[in-house]
């Protein structure tokens, strides 16, 4: 026995889970092809016949709004010839047509010719104003997310609107494994340190958090002065569906790859898509109150006038080291991206190890790795 044969570990997963193609493939198959996956906001589908195609994990989906204004999901291949039926997105008439074998389906996936089988159905679920998709038929989204719902913010997401035009949505390719990003998101210990100049509007010491099933929930109250002056200092109009006593930051992570950031004045879905073992796409979709522009201008002007208040809370962690130094931007997203990429870089080092774990503040990091491990093990042993 060679003593050095010990596998280098993160907390509960081997380092290779963050670097190897083998682990990436395993996760694509057993996690991303077997869970509820974020599709978009409910208002994105407007008209019967609207459709979009997307590949998630090992599945290819076709999502269509039928004539009853109901969104339906199918596996995107013809049940007869087994080739993909549609590409990209667009608008259909009354039928879905497969030219290869001349097979026609209605928008509910039924073949118009009784001799041919219907499309393979997938499930659609609505949760907090978002559409999710699941590869199996007849799945109920509440069976998966229902138990964490009581721990989420009271925000009525359907009443909020997305202000960014599609081209303005925050999309960033981050050079690290997707789990590094999740672990950063659920790490309470780093908030007061990495973000010492960017997230001072919240009381990190009073944060409450925990797990329900595979999901993580997190809440922290606003910092006292910010709470007191909220009406004038808030950058955007406050979200009126949140009662004053419930205001705070609700920042859950829903397994496997979507986080929410439900705040006093904005509501954001933080969606993570693995691209390769060391590349991940992060997409932020934010919603605000549905108010006329002048209300936003008015609130922004009030907030700008509180310059002194904000200068005490938002400032760069370090002086700029070079042009565009993320650690000098005073932008917490840039700070997070920076440390995630810095952590990934070290994973190839023969000397890499995790030296210690904060009992409370990093509890979630270790727990998340456990959840990933157990999910894969469970799926691998399921009868096919």
């Amino acid at each position: 026995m060679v003593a050095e044969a010990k596998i280098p570990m993160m907390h509960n997963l081997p380092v290779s889970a963050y670097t190897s193609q083998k682990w990436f493939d395993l996760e694509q198959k057993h996690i991303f092809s077997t869970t509820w996956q974020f599709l978009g906001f409910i208002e994105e589908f407007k008209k019967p016949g609207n459709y979009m195609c997307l590949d998630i994990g090992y599945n290819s989906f076709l999502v269509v709004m039928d004539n009853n204004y109901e969104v339906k999901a199918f596996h995107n291949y013809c049940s007869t010839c087994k080739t993909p039926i549609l590409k990209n997105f667009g608008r259909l008439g009354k039928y879905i047509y497969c030219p290869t074998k001349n097979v026609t389906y209605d928008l509910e996936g039924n073949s118009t010719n009784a001799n041919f089988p219907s499309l393979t159905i997938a499930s659609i679920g609505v949760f907090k104003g978002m559409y999710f998709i699941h590869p199996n038929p007849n799945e109920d989204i509440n069976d998966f997310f229902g138990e964490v719902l009581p721990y989420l913010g009271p925000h009525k997401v359907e009443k909020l609107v997305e202000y960014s035009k599609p081209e303005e949505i925050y999309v960033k390719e981050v050079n690290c494994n997707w789990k590094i990003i999740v672990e950063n998101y659920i790490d309470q210990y780093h908030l007061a340190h990495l973000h010492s100049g960017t997230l001072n509007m919240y009381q990190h010491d009073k944060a409450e958090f925990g797990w329900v099933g595979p999901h993580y929930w997190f809440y922290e109250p606003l910092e006292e002065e910010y709470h007191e002056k909220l009406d004038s200092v808030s950058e955007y109009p406050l979200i009126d569906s949140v009662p004053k006593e419930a205001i705070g930051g609700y920042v859950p992570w829903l397994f496997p790859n979507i986080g929410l950031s439900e705040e006093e004045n904005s509501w954001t879905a933080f969606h993570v898509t693995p691209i390769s073992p060391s590349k991940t796409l992060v997409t932020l979709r934010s919603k605000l109150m549905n108010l006329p522009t002048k209300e936003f201008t008015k609130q922004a002007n009030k907030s700008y006038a509180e310059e002194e208040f904000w200068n005490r809370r938002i400032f760069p962690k370090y002086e700029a080291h070079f042009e565009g130094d993320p650690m000098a931007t005073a932008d917490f997203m840039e700070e997070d991206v920076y440390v995630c990429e810095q952590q990934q870089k070290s994973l190839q080092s023969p000397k890499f190890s995790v030296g210690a774990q904060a009992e409370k503040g990093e509890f979630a990091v270790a727990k998340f790795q456990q959840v990933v491990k157990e999910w894969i093990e469970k799926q691998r042993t399921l009868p096919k």
Partner: protein
Amino acid sequence: MANKKTMMHALPVEAYTSQEWFDLEMKHVFSKTWQFAGLVEDVANPGDYISVQAGLNNIFIIKGRDNRLRAFHNMCRHRGTQLLRAVGKAKKAITCPYHDWTYDLEGKLVSIPKKEEEFPDLCNKELHDCGLNLHEASVDIFKGMLFVHPEKNAPSLMEYFKGVEPHLGPHIPEELVEYQEGYYEKEIKANWKIVVENNIDHYHLAHLHEGTLNMYDHDKAQFGWVGPHYWFYEPLVEDYRKDLKNASLTPVIDHVPEDKIGAYVPWFFPNIGLAESEGTWSTFHVTPLAPDRTLVSFRTKVMNSSEWEFTKQAAKSSMSKIWTKYGAKGKYEGDPNTDPMASGDFMEEDVYACEQQQKSLQSPMFSIGAQAQRGEYAMEKFQSVVKEWIEKYKD
């Protein structure tokens, strides 16, 4: 039958194209050798630091308050986050941006935020006795260059270069100054070994560089190997030598005795070469990025003379007849701005040849047809050194 491995000289072609070989080299060559990190003046004052990717390890060198150089693995012991960026000045302490764990300039852990609350069972000794100090690496200096080794108890750098040292130029790099405009960095689309082999290939000098390096007397070149290192010397051509004081582009390096003037172009295993010439002293550092991508960077030093001296020398040089006959002439006719073979720049010619060779490696018809006994002897030798080094460390 058709299963015979296609070979370069001593290595299979896949050593130049496959990820598997690249990984093997990263692990067994670049992570187990002394690696060039910079010049001594990069870390001049206490708190100055420089970091370098040395194979799989990222290592930084920092000058302590006691003016001593130390090297550490650039990795926080908490979660592994890389601590320091490329270069920096006057650090008082080393703090990880992620959770503010802090180390002193000697790599000792001095602060953990919320230690009592979050890490009650970590260790009940002083923090620097908790086994969480930065991993130590080694740093040493050779010819004014900084080298790092990932192991704390690395083999001696002096021992490593001892055999080749007598074959190097008499230049004293510490007395020269860096010429900032002389910094050159380029990503080449070829395996790192192609770049090295080009650098040590004597046979090509009179051909690829017939119009660019003809001020040196290639026929009188002397070269050989000592251990894993290659040395090379060639004198100036007679015309140039006679008119050197006028013709030299920069002030002639005055501490090189007249009878020793020439070009010393050694290659130190695995990835750093020098070009020690009559007027300049350069490091040529090669960093493999992928099986078919390599970063090369040059740093050049010149005499520590006034700007006026440089202007005067440049003026004299431009009037010298030498340059009508030697140097700066494209090999082929064409637009010198877009065609590397018409550029009159030997680096462009080399880059072009390296990339063209890499392209052919994927061809099923590729093979080495012949090897120049003398002029290409070094290439085969270099390949054997790589092969032996990997074999030595693999188990």
